[in-house]
């Protein structure tokens, strides 16, 4: 390569597996009902389940005691689901567990423990029936004891002792299981306890009665003992039946309470395309909306049978790659300057940045101070005029408005930082004009540093822009609260209204440009949440809430998009009041496991031997079909896929060795690193006449997919 003309941007270092927050017991107890009550699991197209809310390998094991789902061995919430990566062809299994239900009035018994207690009731019945074996076991133990006593000190002593220990334990265990049941059902101070003890003594009449200080064994009535034993079993069964009934009633009451309280569960899902968040659309959640199910559209893991969406995006990327390659080639040949190329390719972006800087430069501290005074004067004038017209306009309205104003002014340091950073970048653009090779490394360094600063400043801007708009919206609400005649007579023509609208326009422009700037710098990124509403949603009464399965295959999507699931627990039978904080969960859609993609890239390609040409290399566009491994969140770094982001495959590339040759196409192999940010290739030019005609070539390049996409947008 003769000229250093290829710009290697944003080479990422090794990525470790993303770890989502896992909860300990105290953190779990503080989660909301929605966070604890909705369990996400991914089901891939082969039917295998991959835990999202649960920890891997914890299937069926409760995250914490008391949270047991009756009759199910479903995984439980053990970690944050937000931010999980799932395959583009998967389904999301969303299960509702008992933690979603409202607590009981006493709040004492976790709803899930009713299942444990119900199970214990059955075990109790078994223990009581075991008393039938006790008499025989006790007699065996007595026989073994007597044998041991008579053989003390003899050689048989140890064996007899072991036999006695076994029979003693057996009798004690059997009796203990039954006594545990009786003591649980009738605690020591229970008024019915003496009655039960009486029955027990009749059932086991070996108990001796004390008479005049001596012990006397009463006559054993076997029939009476058997009747008493049956009577005991009947009493126990009656108690257990009553207990089972109480538990069932408890569960039913809990569910009824939820329905009576009118709590409803609403679940919405939205697909947010990675390249344009404004095109977010609802996704069908079975049982929770009336949207069409849609047809299944599988995304081909081989990357060859493309969906309409994938095809469109690929065409855009190829076009963008081609444009950039041609532009870089013009720069290389001295036919254009680098800055001109950037400006041409970036469309409105730099013009927007200029205008942003102009707008924001009006907001430097001294401007703020002057604006603040002007605004305060306008507020005072307006209030005086309003007071003259309407005596009820009071001090608290003025205080509210000035409070909103103060919060707005407090954001000025952040705006100032952005202005400074944009100034720096403008200076750097001037330095790029006429840059020479010696100065290139430092200039590149300074540019990357400035870009990094811009990222930091810009990252705060969406919040700032949203805050600005919300403050201005608050002002609008305060104005709306005025009587109509006051608004017409005083507000409409006031200097305050004009200033407020000026600020609102400024905030909107800031918001729009910020979106472009963030997409440029971060190389991706549509938002991962949407405020869109699904108008076809169904609110399901909480007692009827069922599990659901969101099938990604039934919606238009591609790798890189996001799925935003929003769950709300609403109070009452209607209305929008939330009983619990809204649960927003976003999933990143990627191709996971082994898969292949068609990847366009900009490459610098050079022939191995090109006779008679001083300049046999140049920028071009390549299209590679590459294989790679998409690691799941719970996989560490299989095949070093995460560390190196490697891929390998085949390519086709446009070649043009020597100025007299027609365009040719070369075919070869490609190896990519760090998610295609670096590509190395080598291949064969079948159209070359000889080896000296550039039959063998090599290239170095980069896909720069997200950057190209952002730069080539024309809207």
């Amino acid at each position, binding site marked *: 390569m003769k000229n250093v003309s290829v710009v290697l941007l944003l080479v990422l270092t090794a990525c470790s597996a993303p770890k989502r927050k896992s909860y300990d017991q105290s953190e779990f107890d503080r989660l909301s009902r929605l966070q604890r009550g909705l369990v996400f699991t991914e089901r891939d197209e082969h039917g295998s389940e991959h835990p999202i809310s649960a920890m891997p390998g914890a299937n069926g094991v409760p995250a914490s005691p008391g949270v047991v789902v009756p009759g199910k061995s479903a995984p439980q919430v053990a970690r944050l689901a937000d931010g999980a990566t799932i395959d583009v062809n998967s389904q999301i299994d969303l299960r509702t567990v008992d933690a979603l239900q409202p607590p009981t009035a006493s709040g004492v018994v976790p709803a899930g423990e009713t299942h444990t207690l119900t199970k214990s009731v059955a075990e109790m019945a078994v223990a009581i029936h075991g008393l039938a074996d006790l008499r025989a076991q*006790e007699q065996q*133990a*007595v026989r073994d*004891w*007597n044998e*041991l*006593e008579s053989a003390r000190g003899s050689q048989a002593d140890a064996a007899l*002792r072991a036999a*006695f*220990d076994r029979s*003693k*334990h057996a*009798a*004690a*265990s059997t*009796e*203990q299981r039954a*006594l*545990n049941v*009786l*003591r649980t059902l009738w605690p*020591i*101070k*229970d*008024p019915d*306890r*003496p009655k*039960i*003890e009486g029955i*027990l*003594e009749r059932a*086991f009449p*070996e*108990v*001796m*009665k*004390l008479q005049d200080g001596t*012990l006397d*064994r009463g006559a054993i009535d076997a029939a009476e003992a058997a009747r008493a034993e049956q009577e005991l079993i009947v009493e126990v069964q009656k108690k257990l039946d009553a207990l089972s009934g109480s538990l069932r009633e408890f569960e039913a009451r809990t569910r009824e309470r939820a329905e009576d309280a009118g709590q409803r569960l609403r679940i919405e899902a939205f697909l947010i395309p990675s390249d344009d968040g404004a095109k977010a659309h609802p996704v069908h959640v079975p049982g929770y909306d009336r949207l069409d199910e849609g047809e299944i559209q599988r995304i081909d893991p081989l990357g060859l049978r493309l969906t309409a969406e994938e095809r469109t995006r690929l065409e855009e990327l190829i076009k963008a790659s081609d444009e950039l390659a041609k532009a870089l080639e013009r720069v290389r040949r001295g036919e254009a300057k680098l800055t001109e190329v950037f400006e041409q390719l970036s469309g409105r972006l730099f013009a927007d940045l200029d205008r942003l800087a102009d707008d924001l430069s009006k907001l430097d501290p001294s401007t703020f101070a002057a604006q603040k005074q002007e605004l305060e004067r306008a507020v005072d004038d307006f209030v005086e005029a309003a007071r003259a017209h309407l005596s009820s306009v009071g001090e608290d309205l003025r205080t509210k408005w000035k409070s909103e104003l103060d919060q707005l002014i407090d954001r000025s340091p952040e705006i100032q930082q952005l202005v400074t950073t944009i100034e720096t970048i403008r200076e750097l653009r001037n330095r790029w004009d006429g840059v020479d090779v010696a100065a290139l490394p430092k200039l590149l360094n300074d540019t990357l540093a400035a870009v990094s600063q811009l990222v930091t400043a810009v990252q705060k801007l969406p919040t700032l822009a949203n805050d600005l708009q919300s403050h201005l919206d608050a002002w609008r609400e305060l104005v709306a609260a005025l009587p109509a005649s006051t608004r017409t007579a005083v507000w409409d023509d006031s200097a305050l209204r004009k200033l407020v609208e000026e600020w609102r326009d400024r905030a909107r422009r800031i918001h729009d440009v910020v979106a472009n700037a963030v997409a440029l710098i971060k190389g991706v990124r549509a938002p991962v949440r949407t405020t869109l509403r699904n108008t076809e949603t169904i609110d399901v009464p909480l007692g009827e809430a069922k599990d659901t399965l969101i099938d990604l295959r039934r919606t238009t999507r591609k790798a890189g998009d996001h799925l935003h699931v929003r769950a709300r627990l609403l109070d009452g039978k209607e209305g929008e009041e939330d009983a619990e904080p809204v649960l927003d969960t976003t999933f990143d859609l990627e191709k996971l496991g082994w898969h292949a993609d068609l990847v366009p890239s900009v490459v610098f390609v050079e022939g191995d031997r090109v006779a008679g040409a001083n300049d046999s290399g140049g920028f071009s566009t390549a299209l590679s079909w590459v294989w790679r491994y998409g690691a799941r969140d719970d996989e560490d770094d299989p095949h070093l896929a995460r560390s190196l982001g490697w891929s390998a495959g085949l390519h086709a590339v446009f070649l043009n060795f020597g100025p007299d040759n027609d365009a040719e196409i070369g075919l070869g192999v490609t190896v990519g690193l760090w998610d295609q940010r670096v590509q190395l290739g080598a291949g064969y030019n079948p159209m070359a006449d000889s080896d000296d005609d550039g039959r063998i070539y090599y290239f170095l390049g980069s896909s720069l997919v997200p950057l190209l996409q952002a730069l080539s947008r024309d809207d």
Partner: protein
Amino acid sequence: MTILTNSRASLDKALDTEGTTLFLILDDPENAGELVHDKAVAIASARPWRNAFLITDPSLLTAKERKLWFDEAGYYAVVGGKDKVVAVRGPLDALIMSNGAPSAMEIRWSFNQGDLLP
């Protein structure tokens, strides 16, 4: 002799015999020590490896025995197993039902805990 007033010979014999389980009460005149003792003797008689002792004179016990077996007078303890360790202990009041009578179920349960020791 199971009421120990001035000699602990029978207690020592029971402690030295392998396989026995002992229900011990440190008497307190204000508690139902005697009632519980009588019930425990009756229950124990069905299984000859069991014994019940009512200790009326704390000085018959060593300091270690007093500390291991009882917190204070009016308490019971069940010892058993190869090393005659404490299986269960507590106040006598925990063995009395709402009608004031000692609970056979609680005494049986305590004896069983001693029988189950290794």
